[in-house]
């Protein structure tokens, strides 16, 4: 709970401290500050929110369920956000645009899985000291069909749908709910099994499904494309249940330069990959898809005995392939990758012991049922030219890793992520900390929001004209469960431990979202 710090002098103790070390004494202090004591500092409206949340809890709904409730059908705003702390950096004028599921119940039905909620794109515009929020549902075919049916008849990741819903191709089930890509004159709302969906960058109005090229219509364009410093976009798509996948390369003009099927050593379902200047890296964890129809979760099997096979493909010659092997691990997200002078490849990745979000957990979240927590930790994987592969595991609980986009595919040290103190009891759901890990020093500094916040992905925004690795801001959102409102935060990316430079509060609690971009 950082809000009270607004009124404290700079010399006051800060929550989080300069370094997120994990010694017991420090942890005790953090617990005290971030947890128990924070409750005493709640403002009156926040206290009311907390009481409401507590009442909800007694009624059987945990207060974290606020992150999984429907957004207004027509979206939100534009509405001004209320500044509640600090001052905005003068040079930071632009928009944080995020995407995530926004509808979980319709009629008397509850959706089968968090990942299947219709995409709600949210734009947080910062101009001077003012910030505004606009949020709109992506007007997909799926949303129209489900709306007309008054339920969830479209199939998905963990939703069965109705047996008679027409599905001619993947885009008939496209939820457009996972990430956003800035295409200049358009935003693309991304899913992972179908095409991008184009939106108006100002109004967020949906323009329609993007056909990148007619012969590859409806091919999967995943939610984690990588944009290299020259403006090329690399992406992949899964051939779910088969031992093939698809690779995309768009040149800086947006033309499809490469679109090819590649062999996939195992029928692994992965959500992200990593890209260096010359190589595509696919860490194929042992989450294996068998044939059949949606929901996908019914076809997924965790087979840890098979370990991780890392497929490395040359960007210029897809037939130039190499395999590396690692002990079993699960991941959703990588940070980024680079190649060293000796040809070694390195990428940061958030590895867990088993799937952190399966069919069961995704269904429990939307229903407000307690979930099992498997915590991912920040790791650095190195693939050596001699064929050895190794994992350097930190004790930092981490998800949603982000790096400096200007350094995509290049050597660098910093990776920002969200997490929580590895020694604390895990929060029931989600994360409460933003952090920066420096691989060169092995240190992690952080800011802990405390147990009232569900902290969403934060992204690095380089300062205009700045060149140094941490010269810029970390911009992101959290859901304040006490205030029952979504908040927008800006940090000095090099000094997270000082807390947000500025925080604004929205007049609404938006459901939790996945990924965002910064658009100047």
């Amino acid at each position: 709970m950082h809000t009270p710090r607004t009124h404290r002098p700079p010399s006051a103790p800060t929550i989080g401290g300069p370094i997120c070390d994990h010694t017991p004494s420090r942890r005790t202090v953090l617990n005290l500050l971030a947890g128990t004591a924070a409750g005493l500092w709640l403002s009156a409206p926040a206290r009311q929110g907390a009481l409401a949340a507590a009442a909800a809890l007694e009624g059987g709904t945990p207060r974290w369920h606020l992150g999984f409730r429907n957004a207004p059908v027509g979206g939100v705003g534009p509405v001004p956000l209320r500044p509640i702390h600090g001052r905005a950096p003068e040079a930071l004028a632009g928009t944080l645009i995020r995407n995530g599921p926004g509808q979980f119940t319709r009629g008397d039905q509850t959706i089968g899985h968090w990942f299947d909620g219709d995409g709600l794109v949210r734009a947080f515009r910062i101009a001077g000291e003012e910030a505004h929020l606009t949020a709109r549902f992506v007007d997909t075919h799926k949303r129209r069909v489900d709306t007309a049916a008054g339920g969830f008849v479209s199939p998905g990741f963990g939703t069965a749908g109705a047996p008679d819903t027409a599905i001619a191709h993947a885009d008939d089930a496209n939820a457009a709910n996972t990430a956003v890509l800035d295409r200049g004159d358009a935003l693309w709302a991304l899913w992972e099994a179908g095409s991008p969906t184009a939106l108006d960058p100002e109004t967020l109005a949906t323009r329609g499904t993007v056909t990148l090229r007619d012969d590859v219509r409806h091919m999967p364009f995943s939610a984690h494309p990588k944009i290299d410093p020259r403006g090329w976009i690399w992406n992949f798509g899964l051939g779910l249940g088969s031992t093939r996948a698809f690779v995309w390369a768009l040149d800086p003009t947006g033309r499809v330069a490469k679109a090819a099927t590649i062999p996939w050593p195992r029928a692994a379902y992965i959500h992200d990959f990593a890209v260096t200047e010359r190589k595509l890296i696919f860490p194929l964890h042992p989450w294996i898809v068998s044939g059949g129809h949606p929901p996908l979760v019914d076809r997924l099997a965790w087979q840890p005995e098979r370990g991780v096979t890392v497929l490395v493909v040359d960007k210029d010659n897809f037939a130039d392939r190499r395999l590396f092997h690692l002990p079993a691990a699960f991941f959703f997200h990588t940070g980024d990758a680079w190649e060293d002078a000796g040809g070694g490849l390195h990428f940061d990745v958030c590895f867990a012991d088993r799937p952190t979000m399966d069919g069961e957990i995704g269904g429990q979240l939307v229903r407000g049922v307690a979930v099992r927590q498997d915590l991912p930790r920040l790791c650095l994987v190195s693939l050596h030219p001699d064929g050895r592969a190794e994992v350097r595991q930190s004790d930092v609980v981490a998800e949603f890793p982000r790096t400096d986009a200007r350094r995509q595919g290049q050597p660098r040290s910093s990776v920002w992520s969200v997490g929580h103190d590895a020694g604390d009891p895990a929060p029931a759901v989600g994360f409460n900390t933003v952090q920066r890990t420096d691989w060169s020093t092995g240190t992690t500094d952080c800011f802990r929001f405390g147990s009232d916040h569900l902290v969403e992905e934060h992204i690095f925004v380089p300062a205009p004209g700045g060149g140094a690795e941490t010269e810029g801001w970390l911009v992101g959102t959290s859901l304040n469960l006490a205030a029952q409102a979504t908040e927008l935060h800006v940090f000095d990316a090099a000094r997270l431990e000082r807390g947000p430079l500025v925080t604004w509060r929205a007049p609404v609690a938006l459901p939790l979202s996945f990924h965002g971009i910064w658009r100047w």
Partner: protein
Amino acid sequence: MRSAPLFLYALCLTGAIGLGSNAADGDRETGRLTLTFEVTEPSGAIMAAVFDNADAYGGNGAPVRAFRLPVTAPTVRQTLDALPPGDYAVRAFHDLNDDNSLNTNPFGVPVEAVAFSNGATVRYGPPEWAATRFQVATGETGQTLSFRR
């Protein structure tokens, strides 16, 4: 989706059957079927095949009629005369690029719109005979097939 080979078989190998009808007009023992096609883009051509049994519909046999119909308007029609009364089903696709085949993406999913008789829809593949069949009696019968891409 496994629909592509079936379409290709039905429409390319048997396209030679053409539109011919040897029955005399007004034959009271046969029916006349009017097929109406609704498209989203008025260009290219409709490629359609008409079957009178489940095996042929499923790819093991020839259609009783097959035709190519140029598309110049949002709605186009084709009339088929002299069909013996009985059960029929129609498979069709909108050949937007005029190459006489149903184009598919690298994963085998059609990139041109397909449509079936009886309002049957695609669900991970073409609908079964049972969902697409309709009855032709003596006299007039009509079916509308809508393409959505």
